[in-house]
């Protein structure tokens, strides 16, 4: 997420509402895609988390462009067989990665010292670096997208336990996502009601004041809710230690996938060094 936005035609409210909308929509899409009957959806969450991570590491370690390209091709194949459309990939995974990497990579093509290309200000090294940046960004983004959209979020969290992430952390992560959705809706309603009461666009100063007061109100709500949630947790027996229940069971296809991911990752790491 870039920190630099030119203040284009949209004012604060419009831009923020859009941001909130797309975030909520992403959450919605994640839920439905995870329920389709594709290749990835049928695998155990732990296998997918470990697999995604090993592929990410292979992408990061690679010193050869074609290896990254191969991993990218594999990711596309998995997407297609998991009924995740290329359009969704393009819109959600690639667009952001391309824009951001483009901004960084394009100057690098000209600025990186090295042999010039056909006498132009571009250098061979610059082109290679730019390619590395863009391909790594897009491939990594695709891998994460595949994981997030083929697996229910609660399963991803519980699968983190294989990396010895403490239970309390996993519980906090789960509760956070659940309440992000609530706070997003509350913020959305606050802005919508403000927008509807106004004929003209708000001035920047007014917008800032709205953002600040909304944050203040949300903070109050946050603190109030946390006290209430704590009581609700206690009411059902929570006394400090949290326990998780997971439905994970390795079936033969999961073992096969584990073997496949491990072999592929090792191969890619070896080939890319």
């Amino acid at each position: 997420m870039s920190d630099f936005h030119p203040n284009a035609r949209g004012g604060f409210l419009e831009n923020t509402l859009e941001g909130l909308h797309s975030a909520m929509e992403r959450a919605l899409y994640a839920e439905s895609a995870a329920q389709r009957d594709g290749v990835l959806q049928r695998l155990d969450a732990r296998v997918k988390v470990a697999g995604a991570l090993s592929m990410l590491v292979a992408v990061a370690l690679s010193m050869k462009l074609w290896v990254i390209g191969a991993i990218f091709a594999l990711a596309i194949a998995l997407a297609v067989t998991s009924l995740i459309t290329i359009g969704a990939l393009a819109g959600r995974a690639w667009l952001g990665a391309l824009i951001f990497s483009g901004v960084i990579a394009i100057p690098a093509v000209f600025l990186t010292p090295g042999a010039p290309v056909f006498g132009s200000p571009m250098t061979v090294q610059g082109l290679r670096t730019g390619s590395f940046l863009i391909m790594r960004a897009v491939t990594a983004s695709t891998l994460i997208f595949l994981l997030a959209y083929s697996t229910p979020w609660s399963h991803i969290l519980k699968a983190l336990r294989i990396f010895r992430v403490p239970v309390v952390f996993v519980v906090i992560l789960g509760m956070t996502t659940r309440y992000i959705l609530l706070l997003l809706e509350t913020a959305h309603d606050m802005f919508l009601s403000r927008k509807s009461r106004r004929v003209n666009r708000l001035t920047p100063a007014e917008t800032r004041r709205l953002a600040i007061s909304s944050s203040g109100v949300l903070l109050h709500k946050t603190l109030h809710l946390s006290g209430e949630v704590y009581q609700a947790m206690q009411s059902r027996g929570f006394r400090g230690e949290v326990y998780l229940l997971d439905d994970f069971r390795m079936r033969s296809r999961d073992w096969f996938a584990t073997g496949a991911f491990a072999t592929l990752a090792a191969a890619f790491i070896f080939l890319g060094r």
Partner: protein
Amino acid sequence: MHIPDGYLSPATCAVAYAAAIPFWRVALGRVKRAMNSRQIPLLSLFAALSFVIMMFNLPLPGGTTGHATGIGLATVVIGPWAAMIAVSVALIVQALFFGDGGVLAIGANCFNMAIAGSLVAYGVYRLVAGRSALGSARRVIAAGAAGYAAINVSALLAAIEFGIQPIFYKDASGAPLYCPYPLSVAIPAMMLGHLTIAGLAELAISAGVVAFLQRSDLSLLRSTAGGVRSHDEAGIQPRPLRSLWASLAVLLVLTPLGILTAGTAWGEWMASDFADPAARREIAAVSFRHAVPAHVPEGLQRLSTVWTAPFARYAPPYIRGALFGYLLSAMFGAGLIVMIFLLLGSFTRSAARLGSDAA
């Protein structure tokens, strides 16, 4: 600045994780002790709040807009350790669930923004606020300064992480494999944007919401207030740890002054200095004109090859600019020492607890 994947080498990411994990563990332990089990809903909800604040596109003077992280605000309301975890959780959810920011880079992002950010914010807040009343304007300024400082330190750390990539990680043809911009480009580029845009956004949120809270619920600012000046405070006030942090920060910045002192400190010569005529003259001059041995003393020769420091002479050749090498060394050195002590502290505390449990 949310660093995506592909800009930092896996080694850098691993080091960042290794740096972040001890802080997370200490923070979780501290928060649990302070709040018992209440920390679970509080941290979750504050993480959600931080996430939502990160989505606000704030218009700033000059016609630009920027995003804040809420680290300054969180630190002032729930303290640095809780803020560290809350903002880390928000960043992790952003990366995993919403695809903003890299996954391998989570360690680095959390270290820069959540961990360093919260500690810096707390130090600056306590330093600037002093013991002023909870509802005073000074507290608002302190909060704003805290947020501003935090985000800029985060940006600096990110810039350093970016800038060292082309030094270490190039392929056979000399093309940088990860971030291609050296420190001389990365630092100004990052700092410009953060000193002006993102820093102001953070300042606005931190100061603005604290001012809002002063009107709506003053007690929310109490937990990080430290000793607010009151009439009936008797007894010895233990020296607040935070002013020590602040002093450390100031000292860090002043370390390049060391370059101004000419020459090498007495006794800190290298084996090669004994062969160099200019160095020999210097050694004699500071040793009351005592005769300098013609050859390198045998013991010195043997031992000098045992350990080669990673940051030789505080300014390894690949870091251009002695000044900058100094500052980096100071930061890493201080950071390393701090981490060691924190780790030791957490171990001794858990050992003490085990001891008292067994008793």
